[in-house]
């Protein structure tokens, strides 16, 4: 069964809740958007397996809460039944001493699953531009390299 319009708006809301939870340092809010067996993978920070490990990763960054704003654009959603994929561009704004400037940009490639709790992220891959093959001629770089260089 193809995704309904309801499904599409629900999936966009999950993506928005992720950004807001991250930016506020809201661990419970973050927990709510992942499935228990979720995998989170970043070209800058490597891979985390399981919701608990993902939330721990972000708890470690709690000091940065309220100094980063995650902006997204260009969602493309595909799927069927209870499975969906989402591709979404990401721009991180940095707030430092009253100054706002763009930090990094990248792309989210997600798989989402629906169960009794609704749509949640089962897999999220983040590739930072500049660590992505072909972006501004930059070669693909191995995971673990510092995103900010």
């Amino acid at each position: 069964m193809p995704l309904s319009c309801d499904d599409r708006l629900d999936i966009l809301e999950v993506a928005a809740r992720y950004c807001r939870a991250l930016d506020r340092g809201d661990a419970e809010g973050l927990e709510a958007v992942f499935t228990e067996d979720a995998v989170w993978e970043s070209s800058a920070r490597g891979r985390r397996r399981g919701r608990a490990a993902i939330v721990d990763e972000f708890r470690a960054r709690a000091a940065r809460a309220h100094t980063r704003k995650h902006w997204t654009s260009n969602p493309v959603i595909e799927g069927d039944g209870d499975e969906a994929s989402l591709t979404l561009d990401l721009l991180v704004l940095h707030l430092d001493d009253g100054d706002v400037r763009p930090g990094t940009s990248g792309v989210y490639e997600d798989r989402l699953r629906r169960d009794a709790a609704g749509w949640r992220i089962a897999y999220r891959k983040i590739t930072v531009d500049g660590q992505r093959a072909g972006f501004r001629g930059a070669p693909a770089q191995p995971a673990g390299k510092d995103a900010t260089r």
Partner: protein
Amino acid sequence: MPLSLEDQLDIMELMARYNHAIDSSQPEAWADTFTEDGVFEGSAMTVRGREEMLAFVRNRDQSNPIRHWNNNILIDGDGDEATAKVYLVTFDVTGPPQVRVSGMYHDTLKRVDGQWKFTHRKVQADG
């Protein structure tokens, strides 16, 4: 009754109309996004009711063109009432875009004669 998909898209579009109206300095179009007795609470001032809103846009400094951008729109509601939280940045676009303000709108909305309008829109600036 929970909000329909159409309601949610209409509210997102209301936010877009607000941005286009203020950025191109159209007093009527901007005031039209609020109820007659609507309140806009900015970081530096508060504007109440249609007359004050029209005057606010007419008197705005237009020397530096800016663009309002929204993201991460979250809407809750029931029947003819709703609340929303939405990210905001403004870009100064005199030259290459520069972020001027980053913050969040906290909105309450009401459906009036079939159309969604802001009853209260409050800016919470970051930092």
